[in-house]
């Protein structure tokens, strides 16, 4: 009998748990450790953040699903990994700390045969003074944050109905943020709702982003075939901003957020400030701060994790200039180079470098969007690692590992720009591969036959269907495995 422990139940961890449970016979145990009782379809938090959905629409209780599937659930956060075991036993284990009501803080050691680190990010609001719901800005990263943003937006709309003119700032709260696509979605949903409320003339709406150009999305932008031309996603994105009357500030590193005032530095090294009445600024991510210890109890975190606390896997972490970056630098098996029975997927693995060209201001401030590794790529990684582990348990340690590199996989992104069946729209985008590969696709880095972008109501319908389909899949309803990640 083998035990597979999965730390985290986000898109990658939950996918891995369901795939493993389906692949492995019941003599083997699949155990998930997650601090949250509820599963959250995070892409739809955008709609919670403008008041179109409630928490119940984007979440469900994990326990009934795991009970039905035969997956063991521990409501706890992982705090330590002991991949060599301890002085008393060579069996590797993790130390977890309960988050369950009534048991908060109680610790437990759980041994494992295979470990998947799918802990996702720590929302690092602390990187920017005053950033976040505990400071002076809002967020939509969790459903709780999104509900708060919706309340603030509703209050703002009421003020505008009374004739006040308000400034709304949406974007990234640090020069190294990722998930610019979420800020893009939020700003256009916010604009759509303000327009629907009939107070658009009283709203100034500004995008404040660390992207050097709009449409970069942390993936170094895209090239798209449109109207007989190959155009950059910058043109595609800017046209939407101009159409909706939304201003933008690019290449910005937010230095601090004070009440109703954001201070930022731009790529030219100049410092600026912008007054606001409503600010939704995303935080940068780090790893969750897991510690690793060897058999003797010595801290080996620096050999297992990168300084940003994401876990090292089979990537090429050799520092090199942007011009020398290759798609093959990116991991494909997500196996720890030091411990073959440990894997890291989703946001938890350490990327070898950004995808967008990193830039510094003349003051030395780094303004470099971090690479996105959420959604479809996270799900595919979770499945690949689950298949690898299932093969090794069933066929032995020599079974080849499954591969799912972001250098050879694509991603679909449907970015909502307003929610309404007939008047709403979304940007439907696909890219292949996620990591530009200039050896296979010398001109554009991507296959233009599989990379496209289009705006229209059809995109909104797809986004709405994906919402229902992925929640159905996550609930492991009949035939869930037929739905691709």
């Amino acid at each position, binding site marked *: 009998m083998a035990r597979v422990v999965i730390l985290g139940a986000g898109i990658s961890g939950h996918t891995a748990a369901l795939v493993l449970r389906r692949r492995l016979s019941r003599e083997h145990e699949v155990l998930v450790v997650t601090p949250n009782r509820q599963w959250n379809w995070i892409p739809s938090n955008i709609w919670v953040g403008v008041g179109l959905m409630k928490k119940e629409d984007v979440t469900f209780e994990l326990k009934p699903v795991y009970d039905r599937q035969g997956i063991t659930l521990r409501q706890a956060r992982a705090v330590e990994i002991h991949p060599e075991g301890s002085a008393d036993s060579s069996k590797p284990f993790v130390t977890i700390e309960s988050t369950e009501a009534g048991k908060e803080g109680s610790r437990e050691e759980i041994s494992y045969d295979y470990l998947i680190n799918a802990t996702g990010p720590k929302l690092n609001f602390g990187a920017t003074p005053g950033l976040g719901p505990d400071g002076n800005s809002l967020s939509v990263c969790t459903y709780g944050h999104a509900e708060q943003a919706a309340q603030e937006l509703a209050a703002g709309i009421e003020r505008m109905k009374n004739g006040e003119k308000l400034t709304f700032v949406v974007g990234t709260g640090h020069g190294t943020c990722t998930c610019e696509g979420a800020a893009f979605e939020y700003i256009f949903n916010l604009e759509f709702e303000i327009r629907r409320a009939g107070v658009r003339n009283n709203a100034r709406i500004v995008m404040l982003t660390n992207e050097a150009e709009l449409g970069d999305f942390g993936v170094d932008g895209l090239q798209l075939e449109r109207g007989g031309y190959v155009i950059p996603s910058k043109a595609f994105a800017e046209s939407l901003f101009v*159409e909706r009357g939304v201003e933008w500030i690019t290449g910005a590193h937010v230095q601090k957020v004070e009440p109703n005032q954001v201070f930022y530095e731009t790529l030219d090294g100049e410092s600026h400030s912008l007054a606001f009445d409503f600010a939704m600024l995303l935080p940068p991510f780090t790893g969750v701060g897991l510690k690793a210890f060897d058999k003797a109890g010595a801290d080996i975190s620096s050999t297992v994790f990168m300084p940003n606390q994401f876990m090292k896997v089979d990537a090429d972490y050799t520092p090199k200039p942007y011009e020398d970056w290759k798609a093959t630098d990116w991991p494909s098996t997500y196996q720890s180079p030091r411990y073959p029975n440990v894997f890291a997927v989703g946001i938890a693995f350490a990327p070898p470098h950004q995808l967008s060209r990193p830039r510094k201001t003349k003051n030395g401030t780094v303004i470099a969007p971090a690479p996105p590794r959420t959604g479809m790529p996270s799900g*595919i990684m979770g499945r690949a690692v689950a298949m690898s582990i299932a093969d090794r348990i069933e066929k032995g340690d020599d079974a080849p590992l499954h591969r799912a590199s972001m250098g050879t996989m694509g991603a679909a992104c449907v970015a909502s720009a307003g929610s309404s069946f007939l008047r709403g729209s979304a940007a439907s985008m696909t890219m292949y591969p996620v990591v530009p590969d200039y050896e296979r696709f010398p001109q554009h880095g991507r296959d233009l036959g599989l990379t496209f972008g289009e705006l229209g109501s*059809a995109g909104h319908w797809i986004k709405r269907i994906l919402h229902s389909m992925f929640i159905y899949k996550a609930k492991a309803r009949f035939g869930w495995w037929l739905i691709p*990640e």
Partner: protein
Amino acid sequence: MSTPSDAIKYAMKPSRWVLFWRTFFPYQLYRFIWINLRMLRMIFKSHQ
């Protein structure tokens, strides 16, 4: 900062005709099918 008034000199602004097609139901129904097929092609390639 790029304001809509100066950015319009450099950015492509969709015409009324383009905006019409973006929400014209029969055309969007056709695009819905086309986009799904194109996404499926990319998804199957990514799962190989």
